[in-house]
């Protein structure tokens, strides 16, 4: 029983990370239907900024460094949309996705050039140590990152459901022409979406790095899981992204833990098998909207 709970907790924690990257992907995907392959590398770059601000050179408190990294991320993401993606505004999604592939490689190389090719350490904003209840234990860092990322996801949901700018973003994504006609500038909304996505990526990076390591390749596997989580959740749903991520994390942890031949080697395969099954039964994903409309 304790082992089951422990595995569930581990699954949820990695799942929340997958879900958050999925959320960063969905923020951009919803607006234009573009899959941003550079999502993970943008997050990695911002995490290095956090490292420079905090532990590295300036020596700011880690919480301040993370906030700084997120602000940098917002500007960085919005700027990438404005200056790199927008010139391809009229191109099809395949070509735009190729541009984000290029960004993936470019940002990765730039990070190696600017920061460090060596593996670095990043401090956690949460206290060291573990919280133990009845034989089950979880580090404060893991617990804190679960709570923080779930709160951020909830905050994003509120932003889109309740605020003027959130509604404008949703409207611009759903029907750009009508959005323009009510006075919304869809391009600005798109920049804003990229900014939010990159800021979220920065936060995910700051949650991942203390547990593993900080390096230019840190986000690459996570991006695959994030994409899987986004597809599972339905690509255009914020709730779906997070739920998809957690489902993926839990399936992975349980299958790896209880089915001997899967172990750690085949965990990724199990996750993808789960996705294929979901997509066969529900092609729009768990929370995706089916395109039904009365005309």
């Amino acid at each position, binding site marked *: 029983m304790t082992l089951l709970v422990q595995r569930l907790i581990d699954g949820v924690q990695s799942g929340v990370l997958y879900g958050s990257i999925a959320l960063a992907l969905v923020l951009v995907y919803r607006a234009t239907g573009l899959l941003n392959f550079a999502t993970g590398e943008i997050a990695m770059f911002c995490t290095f900024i956090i490292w420079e601000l905090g532990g590295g050179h300036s020596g700011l408190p880690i919480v301040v460094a993370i906030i700084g990294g997120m602000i940098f991320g917002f500007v960085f993401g919005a700027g990438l949309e404005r200056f790199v993606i927008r010139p391809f505004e009229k191109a099809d999604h395949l070509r735009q996705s190729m541009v984000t592939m290029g960004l993936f490689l470019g940002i990765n190389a730039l990070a190696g050039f600017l920061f460090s090719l060596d593996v670095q350490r990043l401090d956690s904003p949460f206290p060291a140590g573990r919280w133990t209840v009845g034989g089950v234990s979880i580090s404060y860092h893991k617990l804190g990152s679960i709570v923080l990322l779930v709160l951020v996801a909830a905050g994003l949901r509120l932003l889109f459901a309740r605020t003027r700018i959130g509604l*404008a973003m949703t*409207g611009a994504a*759903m029907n750009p*022409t009508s959005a323009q*006609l009510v*006075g919304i500038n869809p391009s600005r909304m798109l920049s804003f979406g990229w900014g939010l996505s990159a800021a979220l990526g920065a936060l995910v990076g700051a949650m991942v790095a203390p547990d593993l390591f900080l390096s230019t390749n840190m986000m690459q596997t996570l991006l695959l899981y994030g994409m899987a989580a986004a597809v599972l959740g339905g690509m255009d749903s914020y709730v779906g992204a997070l739920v998809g991520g957690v489902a993926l994390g839990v399936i992975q942890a349980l299958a790896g833990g209880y089915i001997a031949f899967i172990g750690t080697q085949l965990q990724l395969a199990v996750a993808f098998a789960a996705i294929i099954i979901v997509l066969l039964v529900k092609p729009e994903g768990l929370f995706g909207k089916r395109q039904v*409309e009365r005309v």
Partner: protein
Amino acid sequence: MLEATGLSAGYGPISVLEDLELHVDEGEIVVVLGANGAGKTTTLRALSGLINSKGTVRFAGADISRAKPDARAKLGLGHIPEGRGTFSFLSVEDNLRLGGHLLKGRQGRHAFDTWFELFPILAERRKQAAGSLSGGEQQMLAVARALMGRPKMLLLDEPSMGLAPMVTASLFQKIEAVNQQFGTSMLIVEQNANLSLKIAARGYVLESGRVVLHGKAEELLDDDGIRRAYLGS
């Protein structure tokens, strides 16, 4: 209120409008008639900036010929596009909130009551997704959404399209009521010449992107050519 001179527009190499002259005075309802493909929708799209055009468009004293659609909306030019353009996955209320996007303050953006009084059916459907509404209801929603932004002028693209005759009649009544109550100027593109000319002051007839006839609404209603072409008698 609105004046277009030498307006030419098209899609890529295909030119649709040529040297169009058209104006709408303050508080006036003007109708644009024409067969399919005459350039009616293109006229509205050029006026609201959805497509690029040559020539001059002046609105409320400003030259808006090069302004983007969202900038034109800010100046008070509302456009209800062909096919209604509702945000189909959003609720009726959210559609209206988006219509009030440019209003300052939360209260303004939540001030639905005037429009719910005018279109009571929208109040009943307030939580429903816009895409699940009937055609007539969606058209009312499109009108109400445009009105949320308190426009000085509305461009309406075939509001009667796909609606039952009874629904169309009631919609035109409401359009007229809005014009009288709020003094909103209107430019209505229509196939239904009879109903639209009855609420309008003037009308233009478009053929292959050119104005071929222009006059007072009652004169157009009596014109034999118009009667044959658009009124079926």
